């Protein structure tokens, strides 16, 4: 056991690490949760969208510069998500949701290979702009700026925007009403299928955005999708299906605790999320912020 040799600096390091990781987890999980909670479908290709966002960033940065690349990558993934929903997800609405899970799983396989075909098997690097490369000093500690500060701030801003969108805009109201009573909303003249496409697009955009932001600090390779998707599921389970705050708390919790596990028993780092999930299932199966009976 390494407990004896841990000092405060290490703990702080891992804490910051955990928060950063957590923020990315939140973005990805939020996208999935929006789709899952509002439409009741799971997109197993969500991880692939994350990955495509990262790869697009890699390709676009030399062309457009860093910031436009990130925005563009996210938007492209969002639009692609809309197309994906229209072409493949929509036909399955009448069927059990398991079939959407399976179809998106199959497509995830396809996407992974397409990525390999276009960008090759080896990992690619995305360089962050020089301006963000220098570490920043806060309270006597040196923190890598991009990873630990910038990312956290940007994610927080995005989360605030999403919250505003869902809770304070007309579109948000329509979406939330539509998921509770699709018939009624249709009677009111609102195009529910278009709403669903929009929601799917928003969720996918968040995944793509997360991938784009993650690109400079992660190895971008074809396994990225499968690495992230299961973890995203775990966060959703822990936080509660469809819950905005669930994604936030779940993501942070798992991000921080996983990082902490690095200090306690490194081989179990990946298992941390699952352990938390197991506990949640025993104590509160609906998740921390989940709605009762949604899928029980």
């Amino acid at each position: 056991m390494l407990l004896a040799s841990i000092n405060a600096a290490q703990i702080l390091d891992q804490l910051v690490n955990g928060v950063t990781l957590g923020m990315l987890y939140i973005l990805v999980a939020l996208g999935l949760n929006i789709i899952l909670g509002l439409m009741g479908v799971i997109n197993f290709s969500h991880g692939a969208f994350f990955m495509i966002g990262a790869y697009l960033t890699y390709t676009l940065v030399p062309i457009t510069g860093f910031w436009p690349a990130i925005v563009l990558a996210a938007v492209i993934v969002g639009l692609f998500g809309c197309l994906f929903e229209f072409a493949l997800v929509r036909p399955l609405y009448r069927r059990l949701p398991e079939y959407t899970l399976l179809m998106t799983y199959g497509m995830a396989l396809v996407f992974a290979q397409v990525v390999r075909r276009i960008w090759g098997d080896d990992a690619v690097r995305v360089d962050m702009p020089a301006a963000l490369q220098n570490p920043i000093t806060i309270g006597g500690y040196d923190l890598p700026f991009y990873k630990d500060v910038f990312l956290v701030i940007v994610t927080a801003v995005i989360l605030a925007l999403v919250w505003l969108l869902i809770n304070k805009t007309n579109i948000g109201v329509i979406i939330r009403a539509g998921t509770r009573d699709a018939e009624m909303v249709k009677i009111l003249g609102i195009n529910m299928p278009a709403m669903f496409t929009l929601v799917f697009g928003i969720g996918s955009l968040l995944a793509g955005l997360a991938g784009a932001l993650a690109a400079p600090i992660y190895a971008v390779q074809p396994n990225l999708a499968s690495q992230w998707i299961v973890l995203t599921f775990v966060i959703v389970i822990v936080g509660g299906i469809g819950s905005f705050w669930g994604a936030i708390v779940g993501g942070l919790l798992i991000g921080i605790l996983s990082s902490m596990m690095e200090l306690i028993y490194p081989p179990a780092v990946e298992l941390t999320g699952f352990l938390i999930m197991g506990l949640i299932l025993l104590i509160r199966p609906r998740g921390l912020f989940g709605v009762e009976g949604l899928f029980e």
Partner: protein
Amino acid sequence: MRRVFSSPLLWTAVVFVILPFVAGANPLHYSGGFIDIGTTMLCFALFASGFNLLFGHVGELSFGHAMFFAIAAYTTALYTKGFDLNLFGFPYHHDPGGNMLLALAWSLGLTLLWGWLLARIIVPRSSGIYYSMITLAFAQVIFFITYKFGDFTGGEDGLQGIARPQLPGLPADWLQSSLHFYIFAAIVTFLTLALLYWIIESPFGSVLHAIRENKERARFLGYDVNKYRVNAFVLSTLFPAVGGWLWAYYQTSINPDAGSVAYSGDVVMMSLLGGIYSFFGPVLGAIIYWEMQNGVSQVTKFWEAWIGIVFVVFVLVGPRGIMGLLDDLRRYGISQFVRRSVSKDARMETDLAEELPPVVH
């Protein structure tokens, strides 16, 4: 007893006998090449059939069934090779073991234990896609254990050099031959599938079907639905376990792939391909899947994409799979079959005119 030998099992037996002659590429060359695929198909036929007990017969998608395959495979490997374990300071040594039945017992035991534990945790608390997500997540736990605890499980490379067992009354190296191993595997698989057939056709199986069709009504009829779901889950782990046990001896090496998401997804595909509502479906699906994979992977290194596309097609087209198609052909004849596929009206007409029981054989 007579029922046991009615069509689906007969089909299965016949197919198993023919398989070594047709599996793989060239039917003119009778070499190790095909039977290798044949044995793989058998292991996965078991694996997929166990999975499909839940998916096709209860209506629940367990998206992590590979964990049971892996537990059995690793247990067999560790039992056969021997191991040293250091659990929180307590050392434990196991000598290499040659008794394959003991290996099977251990494999089944551990698989059942894990399956029972999970069933108790997961089943009463979830259903639908939530259930699928959770089973997937737990499977990843097993996957990570096989991957990370390298001292014990061999890590990424896994365990090699698993000695094939000796069958009583036969020379010690009889099972070394691919053909012989196939024969052994075919018999084991057939007997195990016969057990599955018995389960599906029993009153227990009927209740599972009722649960699949209308869970609530089953409850109101007086069935303790959750108890059936738990029992079905536990039973469903037996078959991948036997498959995993065979797999370890057949491959003589195993690695974390055995418990991967890919394998879990593969058996879903096999079941959909063959037809989830039929007994023979998953078996057929396993055979076709490996044929496809074998063929396509020789043509392109992106074969997984093609597998993915086939998967998506079968998801969109429907769960009755090839067995369902064959059944439609049998019922409606070729001309009607083509009419139905092309015209939705034709389908409605025939559905109203024919009132035949569904294909659950």
